[in-house]
C-alpha cells in the first residue's frame, strides 16, 4: 500500500522528456530569450538590419569574447574560476602577431604554435591547481599576471603584422574564404551558394563547439568535471579521475582562450598586450557565463550556454550604436543591464520557500 502511494507521484512527474529538459535548462532559455530580444531590436532598428554585412561584422565582434567565455566555463563547471583567461588570450594574441605570417607552411605552423601555447598555459594552470593544491581563483590571478608579463615581453608596444589574405578570409563570409583560397571553383560552385553567405567566424565558433566541447562533455573526463563541481568528495568516492579532470578543464580553458587570442590577432592584424583589455575580457567572460545560466558554484551549465551569454552581452552594446546613447552613458547602461540580468536569478531566491535551500 505504501508502495503504491510512494511511486505514483514520481511516475506522474516523469512526463515528457522535452519538458524535463526545458525545466533543467531554464537559465539558458532565459539567456536565449534575452539575446533574441536584444539582437532582434538591434536589427529592426538598424538601417541595414538582417543583412549579410551586419551579420559578418557582428560575428567578428562576438567571436573572441565567445571563446573566452567558453574558456571560463570549464573551470567554473569544475567549481573554480579562471582569472587568467583574458591574459592567456592576450598572450596568444601577441604570439600570433609574430608567428602567423610568411609562407603557407609558416602560417600553418604559426597557428599550431599559437594554439599549443594557449593549451600549454592552460595545462600549467591545471598543474598549479592540481599539484600545488592552490585554489583556482587565486592561482589563476597569479598566472594571469605571468601571462600578461610574457605578453608584454613579446609586444612591449602594439604592433606586428599578420598574413593579409588570412585576415581577409577569416573575417568575411564563407564565399570570400573560398574565393581567397580558390576552393569550390573560387566559391562559385552551385552547391556552395546556399551557405556562401555565412560568416566564417560563426562557422568557426560552431566548429569549436561541436568538434571540441560537445565530444569532451561526453567523455568520462568531461563528466568528471561536472561531478567534481557538484561534489568533489562524492566524485572521489565514486572512483572518478579527479586530477585528470581538473588538468583537462584548465587545459581546455587555455585552448579556448588561445583560439580567441589567435582570432583577435587575425581580426585586428596586430598584437597588443593591453592589460585593461585583458582584465575586461576576463570579467566579461564571468558575466557571460552567469548570464548563460551556468552556476558559479559549479556542477551545471555548459560552454554553449556561455556563448549565448556572450552574445547577449555583445547584443546589448550593439544597441548603443543604434539608439545613439552617448558614449559617456554606455558604461552606465552596460552596468545596469548586467545588474538587471544577474538579478533575474534573484527570482529564485525570492521564490524559495525553504530558506535552507538557499545555502546549497
Amino acid at each position, binding site marked *: *500500500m*505504501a*508502495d503504491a*502511494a*510512494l*511511486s505514483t507521484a*514520481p*511516475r506522474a*512527474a*516523469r512526463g515528457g*522528456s522535452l519538458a*524535463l529538459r526545458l525545466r*533543467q535548462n531554464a537559465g539558458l532559455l532565459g539567456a536565449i530569450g534575452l539575446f533574441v530580444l536584444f539582437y532582434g531590436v538591434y536589427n529592426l532598428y538598424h538601417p541595414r538590419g538582417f543583412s549579410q554585412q551586419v551579420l559578418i561584422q557582428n560575428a567578428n565582434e562576438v567571436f573572441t569574447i565567445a571563446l573566452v567565455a567558453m574558456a571560463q566555463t570549464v573551470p567554473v563547471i569544475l567549481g573554480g574560476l579562471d582569472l587568467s583567461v583574458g591574459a592567456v588570450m592576450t598572450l596568444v594574441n601577441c604570439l600570433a602577431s609574430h608567428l602567423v605570417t610568411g609562407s603557407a607552411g609558416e602560417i600553418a605552423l604559426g597557428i599550431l604554435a599559437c594554439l599549443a601555447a594557449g593549451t600549454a598555459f592552460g595545462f600549467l594552470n591545471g598543474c598549479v591547481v592540481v599539484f600545488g593544491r592552490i585554489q583556482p581563483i587565486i592561482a589563476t590571478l597569479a598566472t594571469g599576471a605571468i601571462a600578461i608579463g610574457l605578453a608584454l615581453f613579446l609586444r612591449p608596444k602594439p604592433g606586428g603584422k599578420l598574413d593579409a589574405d588570412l585576415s581577409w578570409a577569416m573575417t568575411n563570409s564563407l564565399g570570400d574564404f573560398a574565393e581567397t583560397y580558390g576552393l569550390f571553383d573560387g566559391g562559385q560552385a552551385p552547391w556552395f551558394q546556399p551557405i556562401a553567405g555565412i560568416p566564417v567566424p560563426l562557422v568557426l565558433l560552431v566548429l569549436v563547439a561541436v568538434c571540441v566541447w560537445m*565530444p569532451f562533455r*561526453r*567523455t*568520462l573526463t568531461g*563528466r568528471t568535471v*561536472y*561531478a567534481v*563541481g*557538484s*561534489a568533489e*568528495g*562524492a*566524485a*572521489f*568516492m*565514486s*572512483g*572518478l*579521475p579527479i586530477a585528470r579532470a581538473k588538468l583537462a578543464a584548465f587545459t581546455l580553458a587555455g585552448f579556448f582562450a588561445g583560439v580567441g587570442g589567435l582570432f583577435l590577432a587575425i581580426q585586428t592584424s596586430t598584437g597588443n598586450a593591453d592589460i585593461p583589455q585583458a582584465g575586461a575580457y576576463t570579467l566579461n567572460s564571468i558575466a557571460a557565463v552567469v548570464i548563460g545560466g551556468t552556476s558559479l558554484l*559549479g*556542477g*551545471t551549465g555548459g560552454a554553449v550556454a556561455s556563448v549565448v551569454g556572450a552574445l547577449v552581452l555583445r547584443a546589448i552594446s550593439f544597441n548603443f550604436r543604434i539608439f545613439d546613447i552617448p558614449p559617456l552613458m554606455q558604461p552606465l547602461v552596460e552596468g545596469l543591464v548586467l545588474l538587471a540580468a544577474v538579478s533575474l536569478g534573484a527570482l529564485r531566491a525570492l521564490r*524559495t*520557500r*525553504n*530558506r*535552507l535551500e538557499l545555502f*546549497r
Partner: protein
Amino acid sequence: MQNEFAPFLTLTGISKRYGGVRALDGVTFACGRGSIHAVLGENGAGKSTLIKIVSGVVQPDEGLMRLDGREVAFPNPAAANRAGVVCVFQELSLMPDLTVADNILAADPPRRFGLIDGRAQRRRAEELLASIGCADVDPRLRVRDLPLSRRQMVEIAKALAKKPRLLILDEATSALTAADVERVYAMLRRLKADGVAILYISHRMHEIDALADTLSVFRNGRHIETFAKGARSPDRIVELMIGREITAQYPPKPLPKESVGPPRLDVRDLSWGERLKGLSFSVGAGEIVGLGGLDGQGQKEVLLALFGVLKGVGGTVTVDGRPHRPGSPAEAKDGGLALIPEDRKTEGLMLPMSIADNLVAASLKPLSKGLVIDRAKERAAVADAVRRLRIKIGSAEDAVSTLSGGNQQKVVIAKWLMTGPGLILLNDPTRGIDVGTKQEIYRLLRDLADGGAAILFYSTDYDELIGCCDRVSVMYDGRIVRELEGDAITEQAIVASALNMNTEMTHHG
C-alpha cells in the same frame, strides 16, 4: 574456484593511526563468500576505518590484506572497485547536479567510440533501479531533486552497477523507508545466493537479526570476537560492544500527569504549500512528544516551520500562550526554541572550527558585554557544556571535525542547551550514532523534560519513539493521522498508522 572454503577477504595485523589516535590496532579479520557478515561496534570502535581501508579510501599503516588469496593494496576507491570491492557509504557518494543515470554509472558508463552513450546508460540505470524495486525513479532526474530516501536507493543501485564481489554497506538503510529496507534485504539475499561476500554495518540490532549469518564485534580499534548468529544473546552482544554491563536502554517514563495550565507549544492548522496540510497538536512542559511515520511525510517541515526556516506558513502557533511567528531561526531562538537539525555535518556544525567556537555559536549575544565577547564567561560556558554532556575532547580548541559522530552530535545539542531553551525540536538526532551515546541522549532528553522543557522529537527509528516519548503523533502525507499515548505506543500501532492503514484497530487503548 580455488578452495571454496577459504575466506574471500582476509586482513592480517592491520593498524591505522590518525595523529596520536589508534583507529585500528592489529586487526585480523576474515569474511567469506556468500555470507552476510555484520560488523558491530560503537562509533570510534574502528568500523569506519576498517571499511575505509578495505575500500581504498585510506591506506593502512601496517598489515596485510588478501582478496581471494592474493595480496592486495588499494591506493584509491577506484582500485578497490576494479578488484570487485564496492562500498555503499553512509555519507552519500552522489553528485547532486548529475542525473540519476550519470551517478549510477559514474565510473564506467557504457561508451561508443570513447563517448558516453546516454541511451544505453539510461537503460542500464533503469534495469539496476528496477532490480532493487525502484522503477519509479526517473534516471533522467537530477539527484538534487530526489528525496533523501530515494537518493540512498540510487546509491545502492550505483554500488550494484560495479558488479561487486565484496559489497560493503555502512548504515546504508538508516535513511530508507520501511518498504525500501525490505527491498534492500531481498536484494542482499539474492547477492548472497550468488556468492557475493557482504559486510554489513548497522546500529540497528533487529536488522542484523533479520539479515546476518555471522557477526563480528569491534571495540576501541580492536576486533573482539566473531561468532555465528544466535551464538550470543543480544544483551551479551551489547556488552561486548560497550565493554561493560548495560542498564535499561531507555530511561523510565514518568506517570502521565494531569496537565496543568496551557501547553507550552500549541499548533493549530499548520500548513505549508503541499507539504503540510493543516496539523494541530500541542506539547506540554515536561513532555516528550514524538513525530512518527514514514520518512518524508512532512515531519521535517513541521520542525523547520516552527523554527522560522520556511516562508509562507499558515495556521496559528502559540508558545507559552504568546503567538509565535518567527521569520528566521534567530527570532525562533529569541522565542526560546532550539532545533537540532537533520544533518549535523552541514547544518549543525562548522566542521573546521574549534569545539569552543561551535559550542558558543548560538549564544554569542548573552556571552558579550556590549559589543565584546567576555572571554572568561565564554571559557566557563564551554567548560560547563563539555562537562554537562560528557563530551570526550582533548582540547576545546581542536577542530570539531576531529570528534567522533556521537561526540559531534553532543556538541550540537550542548550548543543549544547553552541558550536555555524552553522548547526543543529534534530532527532524527541519533541517526548514525553509537549505542552508548544514544542512551546518553535519551537520558538527557528525559532530564530536560523533567526540568520543565517541552520536547518535540522526530525519529525514523520506531524503537526510539516507543522508548522515549510520552506521546507520538504519526504523520502521513502532511497530516497527523493518529495520536498515540502511553501503552498504546506500540510498533504495530505506529507502523499501521504510518502506512495509513484503516484497520480495525481501536483508536483508544
